[in-house]
């Protein structure tokens, strides 16, 4: 189960959902694996504002993975113009700002994205790192524990199981 999923999961018990302690679930005895997938820059940019960044940082820390930046990166920091073909070693620390859009910063973003994304954008190191962490790093085995009731949901062969004891067949 890819780590991005944790951003949309909480305890299956109804009373827990009202408690802030039930989100996010806490991995325990986690066995991680990398399941490679193709990076989709526009997907990454779209999903970024949906992330509970602080909570995600906590989970990443609990898993012993390298810290996420304190502040969530801007969607604009995920893509850069591809013309200058520099290697990522030096580009990693640069603040790559692309100025390909002319939208007013103050106006809310429209829900519908333009037809196709700028074709010549390529992922920055930030994008590569986020893709690796959110979409490729996966929980293979272990448990997900609710911080409110303490219930542990098992993860086996990459599948998290949220059936509650009373529902087990």
């Amino acid at each position: 189960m890819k780590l991005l999923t944790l951003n949309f999961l909480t305890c299956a018990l109804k009373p827990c959902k009202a408690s802030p302690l039930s989100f996010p679930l806490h991995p325990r005895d986690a066995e991680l694996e990398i399941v490679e997938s193709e990076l989709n820059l526009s997907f990454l940019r779209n999903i970024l504002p949906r992330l509970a960044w602080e909570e995600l940082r906590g989970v990443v820390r609990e898993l012993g993975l390298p810290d996420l930046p304190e502040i969530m990166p801007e969607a604009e920091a995920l893509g850069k113009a591809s013309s200058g073909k520099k290697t990522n070693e030096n580009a990693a620390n640069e603040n790559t700002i692309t100025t390909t859009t002319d939208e007013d910063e103050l106006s809310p973003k429209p829900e519908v994205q333009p037809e196709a994304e700028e074709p010549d954008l390529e992922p920055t190191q930030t994008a590569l790192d986020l893709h690796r962490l959110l979409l490729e790093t996966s929980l293979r085995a272990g448990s997900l524990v609710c911080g409110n009731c303490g219930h542990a949901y098992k993860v086996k062969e990459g599948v998290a199981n949220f059936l509650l004891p009373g529902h087990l067949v």
Partner: protein
Amino acid sequence: MAESEPRGEEYEAQHVHSVYEEIASHFSSTRYKPWPIVERFLKELPDGSVGADVGCGNGKYLAVNPKVFIVGSDRSTNLVKIAQQYQPHATIVADNLGLPHPTHTFDFAISIAVIHHLSTPERRMEAVKAVLDLLRPPSSAQGQTGGKALIYVWALEQKESRRGWDEGHEQDVMVPWVRHSKKEKSQKRRKGEDHGAEVAAQTSVPQSESKTFLRYYHLYRRGELERDVGEAGGKVVESGYEKDNWWAIATLQGSD
């Protein structure tokens, strides 16, 4: 037609869940073509939308739009394992009545051919409510319409179908699923892409090689889905009939 066992959770465990777990791979091989209404709903979503597919089965609808993110869930571990292949989505094992998602966060949700498997009116309404409660509520202040759910259930009125059920027929039925060990046979003569490979029963396969499983269904009559949506706190924005099924697109009712 259905026996006199008390309906509810235990009943569904025996007459729905264990059957799907058992027939998962065969069931999956017969399900590849998305229904047009569902496909349209998923393709019209803005890029980057986040949603849930409650009762995702083999993940057929996870393949439709890779520009949105869907958390699919199903009671059957075997089906969830099959559904895992569709990127960029995610799949988990969960019950429709105990979904492990934060409430009021998703842009969309789909429930395709699932709610008709719940065996009492209360549980069906609860299942609809569980789907609707995933949605972002409409906000009149920001002029947002809120999240949308597409719910799709089997219809009682299907006299053109092979089964020929229609108005006036018993709504709670047991539907056979016939599994043949010779897979090639069951691939043939598929009609309507709907709820079973039962059509395969018409081909001439030796009896000894087939096994029949019975699944419980509640066949929805006209207007019943809309009523469930209303009782569950939803508002129907569009509804209709497609290929032996009733469907409805709903949002949460506005707070005002």
